């Protein structure tokens, strides 16, 4: 194995090139990435359908449709880091062309689960949103639960805008949560070091990715409506366009953006830490060791 021969060519790239590259990564690893997403989102899809089931069932007017789209989008936004964890681990594994066996992926996820739940669930508020959505009365507007959901979403937006690659740090770098010494590296310190001075850029990038993601989700949704109309002659908008097609469109957009996020993380590592230099240097060290052995 040659560690400078990676699945994705290691070099600096522009942001739009990362989106283009994500198309090819998605193509080559389509089935495993879809499987990883399905496994990751299944519990959230079920939860969202249950938690928001009151909105369109009581009344199906423009106001309730808007309410359903808004809160479904917010829930998906909050749940994205947890739901795409398996995808991130898979991409980290195949980067060096190692076999990514399903059991191994789950084992890797289990190793990082405690930190993932702590940071994404508690520190960034994912659990509070789930609780608020579960117990909210959607027919009674302006409740405390809605205030919680919006507050946490705003906090998550800022946190993920300034430090977008926390998931990758937790899942792929595996630093301990608590320090073992004054200078020991922890997840929090590693996360701060990786993103230091990058907050402004990354926030703008998050907004850009958000706009593209929204356009992609809208485009997928309209396409699904088109296909449904073509194949099932269902040319009316009904509950299924919201309760079935909208979540599918949102999660498909998340699927693509998760690949882009992983590539963005790689690019940041390359820019920040001379990662492509290190891989090249390590490959030469290995070659030197081999030639010495002979």
């Amino acid at each position, binding site marked *: 194995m040659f560690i400078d*021969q990676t*699945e994705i060519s290691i070099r600096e790239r522009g942001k739009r090139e990362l989106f283009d590259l994500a198309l090819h990564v998605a193509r080559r690893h389509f089935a495993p990435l879809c499987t990883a997403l399905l496994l990751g989102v299944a519990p959230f899809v079920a939860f969202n359908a249950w938690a928001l089931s009151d909105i369109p069932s009581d009344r199906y007017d423009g106001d309730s449709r808007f309410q359903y789209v808004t809160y479904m989008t917010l829930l998906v936004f909050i749940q994205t880091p947890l739901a795409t964890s398996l995808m991130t681990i898979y991409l980290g594994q195949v980067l060096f062309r*190692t076999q990514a066996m399903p059991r191994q992926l789950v084992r890797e996820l289990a190793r990082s689960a405690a930190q993932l739940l702590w940071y994404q669930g508690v520190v960034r508020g994912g659990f509070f949103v789930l609780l608020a959505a579960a117990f909210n009365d959607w027919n009674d507007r302006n409740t405390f639960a809605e205030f919680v959901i919006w507050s946490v979403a705003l906090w998550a937006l800022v946190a993920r805008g300034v430090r977008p690659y926390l998931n990758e740090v937790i899942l792929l770098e595996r630093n301990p949560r608590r320090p073992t010494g004054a200078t020991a590296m922890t997840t929090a310190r590693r996360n701060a*070091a990786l993103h230091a001075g990058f907050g402004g850029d990354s926030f703008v990038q998050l907004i850009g990715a958000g706009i593209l993601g929204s356009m992609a989700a809208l485009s997928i949704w309209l396409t699904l409506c088109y296909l449904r109309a073509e194949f099932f002659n269902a040319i009316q908008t009904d509950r299924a366009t919201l309760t079935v097609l909208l979540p599918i469109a949102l999660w498909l957009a998340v699927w693509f953006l998760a690949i882009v996020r992983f590539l963005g993380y790689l690019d940041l590592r390359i820019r920040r830490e001379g990662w492509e230099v290190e891989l*090249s*240097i390590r490959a030469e060290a290995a070659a030197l060791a081999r030639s010495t052995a002979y």
Partner: protein
Amino acid sequence: MATPSPTIEAPRLNAPSPDSRRPDAPSIDGQINVVTPENVAFHYEVAGPFRRLPAYLIDVAIRVLIAVLMSLALLAVSGIGIFDFGMGFLAIGFFVLTHFYGGLFETFWNGQTPGKRIIGLRVLTVDGRPINALQAVLRNILRDVDTMPYAFGFIVPDLQLVGLYWVGLISMALTDRYQRLGDLAAGTMVVVERRAWLHGVVKITDSAALALATEIPVDFEVTRSLGKALSMYAERRLALSPLRRAEVARHLAVPLSARLRLPPSTNYDTLLCALYHRTFVATETDQRTGEPAEFQDLNRPITEGPRFRV
């Protein structure tokens, strides 16, 4: 703060399980090599949909501007009794604008529209040659197919004429050169215009490195790949923190120190700088005589010259 080691960890070197499904598959990248029938190789960076998007939007804006100007011109002439003639002229103008804007520009501007020129893109044939008029028109006419399906008016009434572009996007995702159907039919691709990169020798000013360079045995041969790695390190090291430099350099400096019989306390960064200086800057004559080093052209093929073993 100390910069930690990168731990999307590269597998240990004795890791036994390279991906057996595609061990020889090329790395995923947006760059391709084209070899012409004359056996000349070119290296291209192909542009995908997201890099083409700004160029497309600029061209759409220009087309809208031209359409508005044509409509204003029609309003201006409607007062002098030639409204019907003006309407006919306008209809032809819109038709040409819609279907031949891209084709005409790409024909006469050598594969570029105004948007592509501003963004720095160009359409070429898949074997790296300039496109002809037929190819330019064909790839633009087929844009209507790439734009399908169209948004449904019953959901968002004003969106009924907006294309969702899924045919083109899926086609680009499935082809290595990011070709939409129009490109596939015309045998074309869109590439990023090559920027002029200035490569030069990095000047090493650290006196310890310069001194150490003279201690490296003359018979130590630097391979092509080692030369590239050293060059990459020398170019990027100033952007890294001192701790990170040491961390990166250590991988190679430790076995190098042993090979060159240098003391283990040799500074890792200094050693790589010294080897870089000896390889790319100082000539063998310089080392023997102690004369000031001369700068050599790094743009020459790295295989040239006596010091590289290929």
